[in-house]
């Protein structure tokens, strides 16, 4: 926001100089050009920073899943949150249209799977976790479970479970 203020101030000063130049003092053309360069530079830096933030937010969707933890959401501006929601929505529509009736969840199976069930160990307390056939599993630190792959993939990516190779 401060950068925007600065830009506005520079622009106004530039305007004043432009009118003065038109009034006949042609040696000021250089100054105008100089300020224009500065403005362009500020604009470029700002745009690159915002674009980079967007790229990181997009990466977050692929890493974290649909819901962002609160600490991260706190650091995003309102427009970024809206962008994230829209991106989520377009990604969901795309996934639904791709694989048959139910659609294909592209965020699963990032690495080619070797088996349906995997062995996981829990790294942090996460509370209860419900499996497809209704049984709940209590996730406490260092407890090991044998769970279907698609359920745990999210949690492993988030660092809550750890995949154990036998």
């Amino acid at each position, binding site marked *: 926001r401060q950068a925007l203020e600065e830009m506005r101030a520079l622009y106004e000063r530039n305007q004043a100089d432009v009118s003065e130049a038109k009034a006949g003092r042609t040696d000021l053309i250089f100054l105008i*050009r100089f300020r224009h360069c500065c403005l362009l530079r500020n604009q470029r830096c700002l745009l690159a920073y915002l674009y*980079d933030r967007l790229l990181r937010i997009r*990466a977050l969707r692929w890493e974290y899943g649909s819901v962002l933890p609160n600490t991260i959401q706190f650091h995003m501006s309102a427009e970024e949150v809206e962008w994230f929601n829209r991106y989520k929505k377009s990604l969901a529509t795309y996934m639904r249209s791709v694989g048959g009736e139910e659609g294909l969840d592209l965020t699963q199976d990032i690495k080619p799977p070797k088996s349906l069930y995997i062995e996981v160990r829990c790294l942090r307390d996460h509370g209860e976790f419900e499996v497809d056939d209704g049984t709940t599993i209590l996730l406490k630190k260092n407890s090991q479970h044998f769970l279907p792959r698609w359920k745990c993939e999210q949690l492993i990516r*988030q*660092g809550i479970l750890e*995949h154990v190779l036998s």
Partner: protein
Amino acid sequence: MAEAYFPVGPGLGMEENFLSLDDILMSQEKLPGRAESALPRLAVLMGQGAGSAESIPEGSKLEIPLWLAKGLHDSKRRIISVDLPKIYKEAWRTVFSADANVVDLHKMGPYYYGFGSQLLNFENPENPEIAQTILQTFIARFRRIMDSSQNAYNEDTSALVARLDELERALFQVGQKGLNDFQCWEKGQASQITASSLVQNYGKRKLTEVDG
């Protein structure tokens, strides 16, 4: 292994990538130049004058960043004329042609290749030679970079990387990543699902930012 964050990379050749952070940093590097005509009111900005109505006289030497030089340079060349920084001049060019592996490119301005490509935008009678030198330096140093990046596994690479400029460092990291991925595959860890690096980074930072 599969990363989701793809930053915008630097531009190739004589054009820069507008949104690339690397290019922005690179264009911040300074060049020596000379003012061709009197520059009114600029003295304050350049830190040389006291009043706001002073102008820099013609012919005085200035150090300007690349982005400013590109903006103010004009085919009629009324405002600024640029000289080459010393690393692209005759003396250094002979050093490069003698043995390019010895030069510490990081110390000489960490953007040797990128900056050199941008310099070709300004008209200068030595441009073909500059272009040739940059190319030859790269060819000479490339073999060593590739060799060291592919064979340094699980070691501290700071000694190897210290003398490389930014472009070479990026190449080195790509090589290292390929090597690590291959070793990972050989050990059978390729199918192990891991927490992504973004997640791990956030986990480390959470402790400091929770109160913010």
